[in-house]
Structure formats: C-alpha cells, structure tokens
C-alpha cells in the first residue's frame, strides 16, 4: 500500500476552514489593532498554511522525514531573516565617543532610515 487515501469529507472541511480564515483575515484588516494587525494576519496565515500542509499535502499521514524537511526549510529561512535583520537593527547601537561630538562629524540621520523621509 502506498499513500493514504483521504476521505473527501476532510478535504471539504479544510476547504471551508481556509475560506473562513481568508474572510477573517480580510475583515481583521478593517479593525484597528495598531501593531497587532500584522501579527494577527501572520498568525492566521500560519494557520492556513498548516492546514494546507497537514491535510492537502498529506503531511499528517506522511513519514516523519517529510515534516523534518519542511521544518528545516522554515528554520533555515528564519536563520537568513533573523541574522540579516540583526545587522540592520544593531547598526545604530554603536555609540559615538564623547570627543567626536564637538567635531564636524555628525551622527547619521534618524535610526534605521537610510533616507530622511516620511
């Protein structure tokens, strides 16, 4: 016996959930949550992706190795993003020594902004 045959009912339930979550994420954009809007949207996206991976892509019934492959890819992407952003967001941590303040050298424009723009 090769792959697992999934009952159609499960597919339709997952489909319904995905549509509902899409509607939810769209609706949430119209609600003012400030900084939380992004986080909520990403959490919903992760839920949707998990549903697709587990059920449509059969991860729930696949050998553990496939899950390891997917999780490794996600981990590696996290490494790329996190170490890269560590650079950019610690660039303005370096303090300017006291004696320089009186010189003509001025510290760069507001932190993190390469151009002084809105």
């Amino acid at each position, binding site marked *: 016996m090769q792959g697992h045959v999934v009952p159609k009912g499960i597919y339709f339930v997952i489909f319904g959930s995905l549509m509902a979550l899409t509607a939810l994420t769209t609706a949430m954009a119209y609600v003012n949550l400030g900084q939380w809007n992004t986080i909520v949207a990403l959490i919903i996206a992760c839920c949707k992706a998990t549903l697709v991976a587990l059920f449509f892509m059969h991860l729930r019934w696949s050998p553990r190795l496939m899950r390891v492959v997917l999780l490794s890819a996600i981990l590696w992407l996290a490494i790329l993003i996190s170490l*890269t952003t560590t650079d950019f967001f610690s660039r303005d941590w370096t303090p300017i020594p006291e004696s320089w303040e009186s010189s003509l050298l001025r510290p760069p424009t507001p932190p993190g902004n390469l151009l002084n723009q809105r």
Partner: protein
Amino acid sequence: MATGASDLEGRVHYLNADYGIKSWLLTTDHKRIAILYMASITFFFLVGGIAAVLIRIHLIEPNGAIFEPGTYDKLFSMHGIIMVFFFMIPSIPAVLGNFLVPMMIGARDLAFPKLNLLSWYVFMVGGALCMYAVIWGGVDTGWTFYTPLSTTYVNTNVLSAAFGVFIAGFSSILTGLNFVVTIHKMRAPGMTWFRMPLFLWAMYATSLIQILGTPVVAITLVLVAVERLFHVGIFDPAVGGDPVLFQHLFWFYSHPAVYIMILPSMGVVSELIACFARKRIFGYSFVAFSSVAIAVVSFLVWGHHMFVSGQSIYAGIIFSALSFLVAIPSAIKVFNWTATLYKGSISYQAPMLYALGFIGLFTMGGLTGLFLATLATDTHLHDTYFVVGHFHYIMVGGAVMGYLGAIHFWWPKITGRLYPDGWARLAAAIIFIGFNLTFFPQYMVGYLGMPRRYAIYPPEFQVLNVMSSAGASILAVGYAIPLVYLIWSMRYGPAAGPNPWGAKGLEWETPSPPPTENFEHTPVVTEEAYAYGAKEVSVG
C-alpha cells in the same frame, strides 16, 4: 594485482554496453553521467587555469606585465566564476558522487536517473552562457558581483555571467536532491546509517548545503539582473535600498558554498586514509557527525565576509564567534585522520600522497581562517593577498588535492585500468611543491599589505610575487602530467581487476569497470565500514 588485458575483453560493462554518441548524450546511467561531468569540469578547469596563468604572468611586474587594469579585472573575475561555479562546486559531487553514491550503498542507480541527466544538461547550458560572457568581453565585477558596481556602474557582461551561474545553480540543487533521496531511501539491506562509508556522510552533508543555500543565491542573482535590466532597485540607495543587503543574500549561500567545495574532499580523505593505513577510521561517528555539523554551522557564519562592509559591529561579533565554532568540526576530522594513521600499516601510493598533502595543507588554510575570523586582525587582512592565500590553501591545497586523490583512487574502478604509480607520485610531489611555492608567498605579501584584485602593486612586493608566479608554472606542470598518463592508461594501462588496492567498500566488490546495473544481486551488508583485518563479506 594486475591481471591480463583479457579481463576486460568479452565482458559487458557500463562503458561498452552501448555505443554511439546518443548512448552517451541520452544516458541515464549514473556512471556515464559522471564521466560526462568529468569531461566538462576538466574543460572548465583548463579555462579557469588559463586565466590564472595569465594573472600570474601579469603580476611578475609591479606595474603589470601585460594587461590594462580593466582587462586584469576581467581575468580575475572570470577565473573566480569559472573555477568556483563550474569546477569546484560540481567537481567531487558530480563526478565521484554520481559514480559512487549508488555503488557505495548497494543500489542500481540514483533515485532519479533522468533528473541526473537533466542536471548535466542544465550545467552545460549555464557553462555555455558563462563562456559566452568570457568570449564576448568578460565580466569585471569579481565572482562576487557586489552591488552597486554590478547593477549600476559597469557595462560588462554581468547579465550573461549571472544568468549562467543562476542556471548552473539548478544543476547543483538537482544533484543534491538526488543524493539525499538516494541515501535516505535506497540503502542496501543491512546498510544502516552508521555502516555507510564516510564519503557518503560527506556527500549527504554537502547535498544539504546545496539544497538549502543555492536557491538564495539564485534569487539574489535574479534581483541583480532585474535591477540591471529594469532599474527596479532593491539594492539601489537612490530609492532607499541597501547594497549591503546584496552581500547578506550573496554570502548566505557563498559561504556554505565553500563547504560544498571542501566537504566532499574530506569524505574522500577518510576513504583514502582508511585504505592506505589499513585501519578503520578512528572515531567514525565523530567524523560522520562533524560532516553534518559543518553543513549546519556553515549557514551561521556568512557575515565574516562583511566585517568591513558597514555591517553592524554587534552582528560582526556574533558572526566572528560562530566562525570560530565552525572550525571545530573540521579540526575534529583532522585529529581523527591523524589518529587513524597512528599504528596503521601505511603505504604511499599516489592517492595516499594526495590525502596526506590534503591534511597538511587544509590545516594550514584552516588555521589562517582563524586570523580572518578575528575582527581585529581581519580589519587589516581583509581584501589582501592573505585572504587569497587562505582560500587557495583550502580550495587548491585541500579540495583539488582531494579531487585528484579521488580520481587516482577510483580510476581503476571507473576505467578498469591501472596508471603508472611512479609517474603519479612524481606528479603529486610536483603539485605539492608548486602549490606551496605559489601560495605561501601570498600569505606573506598579503600580511605586508598587498591588496587583492589590484592590477598593480608597490615594487617592494615584487620578489614574493615572482616567487608565486614561478610556483604557478611548476603547479601547471604538475597538473599536466596526470592528464597525460591517465589518458594513456585508458588505452594502454594494465587491467585493474575488481579491487587493486585491497580496499573495503561495496564498490570494490563488483568488477572494474562495473556492469550497468552495478551489482549482479543486491548486496547484503553484515559488517561495519572499513572492516580492515576482518573476514570478507559475501555479496548477496
């Protein structure tokens, strides 16, 4: 161990199973594909080598002996691009890996033979594009394609070179994918993970890097091309982009890429040391795990190429610490190989000379890497010839010697012929001498401050440069000699028999050259790897 030439006649094996150019160009036999790759990468090595020869001749004079600075820039760029992407990265994986992975695990072929052939064609298309770039005037950005030089300020063949590399990257990904699936799913009965030869662990680790890293450089080169073509500026400061982002994305792949270049050679060295010391590798599991550890940690250190690029010093500290960490598994391997040699029954055939050369030269190259991983010293050494010396010690003194050792070790299996070992040892010695004479002066001249990628240099560095160029000419002779006797051996060499070295491993339990299906029956493995001194295992 040589038997008569009649050993080869009358028997059907993978080389004579089918004739004609179509049988080679449409083959799905992993062994034939390995030979296709071997021919291709030899060609690219010659192209990259010619560029190197021209560079070394030019640098005999402080004001440059032959070329304009613009042309010189193109020479070192093409040398780097061709050597890195079209020789070093494919070398052992695509030639020895393709040939040996199925045989070492007792399989009939790789998991996806047609993908394997596709990967060769993709490689050739990428190579053709880069050759077009070479012929049509070259690229002068360095193999690193830094922005904004490559996107905005040069009018050389960046697009075709970048596109060629992009395409060749898919070849690398497909090979890695094939190896991982094959090693996971197609091991012979009894071949547990910890009975696999260490070469397979090395190929597995290399494949992990190929799979996870190459796509990032692929998308990065696409971004460079898009910015160049459409002025869609991800890296363009004029719209708020940051050129250093390119360096992050580029080096995220290109640092692990250097481990793609060295890990397979390390796997080879494990095989050679075990065979020619007639001893099981000391600390087998340490060596196996260190391969995977190198593959993983290699992805955490890329920022050490960017210490003086404007990267934040805090990121620099993190990357520096992690770079020290990545040296540890490599050191573990060197200690284990040395411990294997202790009280071993050592013989000095050509492959062993290459393996011993590897250990010494790789150690030197690795130690100089520590100077470069240290923030303070790197500030002075970055972009000097010290760096050039460092990576050539590892890539040429290490990886290329590993490749040559592998070719010499498995040549009898691949061709069914023996080559003259006397000439092989002479060539190895010439290569060793020529190599050190070429690259040791580069450490010195770099430490003294000579910048890399400069067409001219201050006159006080001339003596060391001339030494380096003299060494290069000796090295060239050393590389030419094996070409001669190996090709000679294909026709006139004595028949090798299945196991001329008396080595352990499934690939040695099948005739030389092997039949197309590799084994008469699927082998069953009952003993550990490198069971030197133990009873012979019976093949299925």
